[in-house]
């Protein structure tokens, strides 16, 4: 896996190999040979998405809905390719059916990165409400999930969680809290 790192030398990787949260996420994905990244965009995820697109190691593309991305990741896993989904809290809220009818019963190691909106400075009431549905849904299916708030814990949590998802063939949600990412704030 260190070999994969040596073989990549694009500028994008260099700029993302610093110790920013998105640089750590990108390198952790690469180290774990996760190369397929369907996503529904989110403002906070923008630097990560940009650097993933710029790195030829990854196949990065937008989907129209989050559950579509979960279907793609499930198919890729069964075909022998590792993948992860990027989304926002409100996107996670659309996933209860596919989690309960595909990822969990078929034992798919679905790796989800969720940019957390709706807390710590949310300015849209609807976003704060939809955020409150996320952890109860995860808990109702007994899904592994971690809320990452600290930069110094990010690599450990992400790396260990990805490995655990794969070895136990179970989904995991890594919730990127505004304490880690800065979140989205009300500008004007």
């Amino acid at each position, binding site marked *: 896996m260190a070999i994969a790192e040596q073989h990549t030398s694009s500028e994008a990787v260099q700029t993302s190999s610093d110790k920013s949260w998105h640089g750590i996420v990108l390198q952790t994905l690469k180290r774990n040979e996760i190369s*397929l990244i*369907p996503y529904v965009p989110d403002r906070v995820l923008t630097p990560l998405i940009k650097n993933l697109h710029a790195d030829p190691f990854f*196949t990065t*593309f*937008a*989907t*129209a*809905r989050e*559950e*579509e*991305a*979960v*279907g*793609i*990741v*499930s*198919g*890729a*896993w*069964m*075909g*022998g*390719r590792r*993948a992860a989904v990027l989304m926002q809290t409100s996107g996670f809220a659309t996933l209860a*059916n*596919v989690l*309960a*009818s*595909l990822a969990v*019963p*078929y*034992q*798919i190691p679905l790796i989800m990165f969720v940019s957390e909106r709706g807390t710590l400075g949310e300015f849209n009431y609807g976003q704060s409400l939809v955020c409150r549905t996320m952890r109860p849904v995860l808990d109702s299916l007994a899904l592994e999930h971690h809320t990452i708030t600290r930069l110094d814990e990010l690599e450990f949590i992400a790396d260990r969680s990805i490995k655990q998802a794969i070895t136990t063939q179970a989904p995991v949600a890594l919730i990127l809290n505004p304490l880690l990412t800065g979140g989205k704030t009300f500008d004007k």
Partner: protein
Amino acid sequence: MNTDARNTKVMNRFDVTSRLIAKLKREEAVIGGIGNTNFDLWAAGHRPQNFYMLGSMGLAFPIALGVALAQPDRHVFALEGDGSLLMQLGALSTIAALKPENLIMIVMDNGIYQITGAQPTPAANVADIVAIATGSGLANSAWAADEEDFERLVEEAMAASGPSLIAVRIDDKPGVGATRRDPVQIRERFMHGLGVREAL
């Protein structure tokens, strides 16, 4: 390209599925969408390269896309009902943008939710699946005029340099069989069939 649904023969899902399976000689993957679509895939004779969906209505094409991106040298077929496809029309544009040349989508269109009591879909009599697919960027989309035309379109799709969609007008008959509802076994057998896993 046949884009006119009105001149197409009304065929039968199990018959069309059986015709497809009979043409597969190279361990092609087949994803069967929820309900009757995968029941008829099961009834057409189990293959290790078949994957049967027991939920997640509308995700047959995205799952097939994932398999196609993981194994670009293998042809991947996805069988989906019209009602299921209506739930996830955005997936057509995702596939059109990625252009996986090994992905072949087949839509079984009877205009009804047969399994829930044959209620008409909102698209019945107003929307055209092939026109939707073409408009979503899937240029290689066509209605099958009859069974022979379907088989010809399958051959054509397997030789195509981009993704293909074949729409089939079917009758209102239920599925012939019933898939054994064991998701872990379905997934494990499929991964074995794709050469990803050793047999236990």
